[in-house]
């Protein structure tokens, strides 16, 4: 007997779920890049800072697989070392942003109207200033340093975590099991510790992948504008900028670090999508 599909609506496409393989590929890419950059001193063929004024802007070759830059430095080694900075700074900023956002989100959700209104307004204010503009102001004020950079990146991204945490914490707080815990004698702090924070965990992890992409984008944009990590320390955004003028003649100076950025962001997004899907199916398991 032939299979008959009886749903005839126009919106019939089976949810084109990303197959897990994409998530796995994404995770593998992220892990691979992370390993390569952490191991940069071991795997990089050259000193990323070693100049060769007689070999400027050499195209890719066996000695320099990614070519050399405007000071004759090996681009491959700089891309590898540049990842340490870009990914490290972004990771720290992501963690800071998650802690800040989730902390404030829980306070807003459970701290009563006053806190909710105040923090909500604060988030609105934060959102109303583009992250880049705020970064320009703060970095002009504090100077370009790693600490300032991390703070700026966290400031530019905590609102997402805040909103996700606030909405979800509000949802969790409205669940009967929270009242059950209160009836069992739990204080607000205990309710948060026992029920709210564990419930937020998976979501925060998914949000962290989003935050990480955002932060990495912002970090590289700042690097591109010359406000990020300072030379000679290599950084992807900064490297793209340094080769921008030579794009027609020496494309490799910009393209390789830019491509590295794209690969990491795609990898993180794929891994994040997979995570999101896993947790959302887990959440539906009992229906």
């Amino acid at each position, binding site marked *: 007997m032939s299979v008959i599909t009886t749903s005839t609506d126009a919106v019939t496409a089976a949810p084109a779920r990303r197959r897990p393989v994409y998530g796995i590929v994404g995770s593998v890419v992220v892990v691979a890049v992370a390993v390569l950059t952490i191991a940069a001193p071991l795997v990089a063929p050259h000193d990323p*800072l070693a*100049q060769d*004024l*007689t070999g*400027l*802007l050499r195209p890719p070759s066996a000695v320099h697989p990614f070519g050399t830059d*405007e*000071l004759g430095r090996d681009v491959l080694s700089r891309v590898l070392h540049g990842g340490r900075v870009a990914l490290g700074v972004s990771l720290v900023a992501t963690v800071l942003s998650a802690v800040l956002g989730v902390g404030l989100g829980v306070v807003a959700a459970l701290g009563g109207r006053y806190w909710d209104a105040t923090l909500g307004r604060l988030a609105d204010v934060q959102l109303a200033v583009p992250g880049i503009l705020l970064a320009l102001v703060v970095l*002009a004020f504090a100077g*370009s340093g790693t600490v300032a950079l991390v703070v700026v990146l966290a400031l530019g991204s905590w609102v997402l975590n805040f909103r996700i945490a606030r909405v979800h914490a509000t949802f969790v707080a409205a669940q009967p099991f929270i009242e059950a815990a209160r009836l069992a004698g739990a204080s607000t702090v205990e309710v948060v510790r026992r029920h709210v924070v564990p419930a937020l965990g998976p979501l925060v992890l998914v949000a962290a992948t989003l935050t990480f992409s955002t932060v990495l984008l912002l970090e590289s944009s700042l690097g591109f504008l*010359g406000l990020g990590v*300072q*030379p*000679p320390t290599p950084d992807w955004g900064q490297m793209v*900028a*340094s080769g*921008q*003028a*030579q*794009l*027609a*003649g020496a494309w490799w100076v910009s393209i390789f670090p830019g491509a590295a950025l794209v690969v990491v962001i795609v990898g993180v997004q794929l891994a994040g999508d997979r995570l999101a899907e896993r947790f959302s199916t887990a959440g539906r398991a009992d229906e």
Partner: protein
Amino acid sequence: MSRTSGRALRAALAGAAVLLMAGCSGALGGGSGGAGTDTDTLTLGLSRQLTSLDPGSSGSIDGDATVQGAIFSSLTKIGPDQKLVGDLATSWRQDSDVQWTFVLRDGVKFSNGDPLDAATVKWNFDRLLDPATKLTSGPALRAIIARVDAPDAHTVVVTTKKPYLDLDERLSTTTFTEQKWVESHNPVLEPLGSGPYQLQSVDLENGATLVRNPNYYGDRPYYDKVAFKVLGTEAARVQALQSGSVDAAIQLDPQSLTQFAGSDRYTTGSQWSSWNMTLRINETKPPLQDPRVRQALNYAVDKKTIASSLLGPDIQPSSGQVLNAPYDQVNPDLQAYPHDPAKARQLLAEAGYPNGLDLELALSTGTYIASDPIAQAIAQQLGEVGIRIKVTTAQFPSWVQRSYTDDVADLIYIGYSSGYRAPAERLRIYTSTYSQSHFSDPAYDALVDQLTTATSREQQTNLLDRATQEFHDNPHVVFLWPQPLTWAVNKNLDWVPRPEHWLLPQDFRPKNAD
């Protein structure tokens, strides 16, 4: 969709469309004539954002000064061949050590038709000399000029405070506007001058559009219309050239120039300029107060290699002074410090720093040609003699601001250009009283003061040689090189590069035009 919500949606969409169109017309109406598309329009790329078109504001030559140079006229001017000629003045003479008389051209008019006479010139000087104004050209002139008189409509008499041999050349960048106009307009954005062009529109961040001044007294410039485009970064300049949207641009990184080597559209070039690059040293820090340390810095940098690889094969290091031939008169006896790392290490050891020291080198983003790689290369070479360099970068304004304070970085990569060749002015930049100097050298200051008030050319040359020798032996900078003037200019255009970095529209004409 229900009728009401449908209507609401349509209204919203219509509103958005109207906004969009309003925006378009606003944005598109602002500037007309796409660059490079209009054959009657000459499009020139500037490297610096404009700050002010007020003739009383001193600006960067590769920026507002060039635009001012097309709009205003001055008493004297320097031609493309470096010769000083009259502009508003038909003749001038030095009456005494401190008095000069300029005879003005007849019938000069501003672009709005108002006359420009000696009284106008006097009012302009009075405006600059008035200590109450904020005009940035004022203070320097106040140091030189005592008073300006206009005994009749054609005669301007300038009285200096002390003898000043180069006043005629010094005044080649002092330009004039009209009192009545300034009182009713914002001269920063609405200049009125008597030069070959008049302003049509200006956007300090992005450029200006000029049209020919019908009342101009001099040779009629070839192009009716000129668009200056601010291309603030190397990448912007390169991209503008690559996409063919400018006819000429200067201040290109030599490495970028190679991209245009085979271009069928542009000729490129590189030559000496009036711009002299050094590392200024902040001597408020103890190690740098020792002349041996400063000499060591000079020995440690391989100026020749850096200049030839990063600035162009023809660029030679400065000969141990802050002046370059052929633009400046130089001291022929001086030589560049040779690259001698051993000597540098020895001097450092003698000064008590056998293990080297840590210094900061501050850069201004994109202000000087190839400054980032140059700084990295210098840092590497200094590192080889044990001087560990941390390079910091800041936007030009904050970098400059910091350079005025004693908190300035230990080393800054900086250069000075000039629109005129008064030797005293070139050396004064490195006296200890200069706002960006952070050292004390009374002997050198005294020599420059004497040079400023020299009353004869022989005396001037003598004093110049003594001052440069003094500065060479007890250096307060790391002598580097002249920044080259690099350019890419449309093959069909005739143009003589000017070492001062002027990119004046009146200098351009098509190759085949007569």
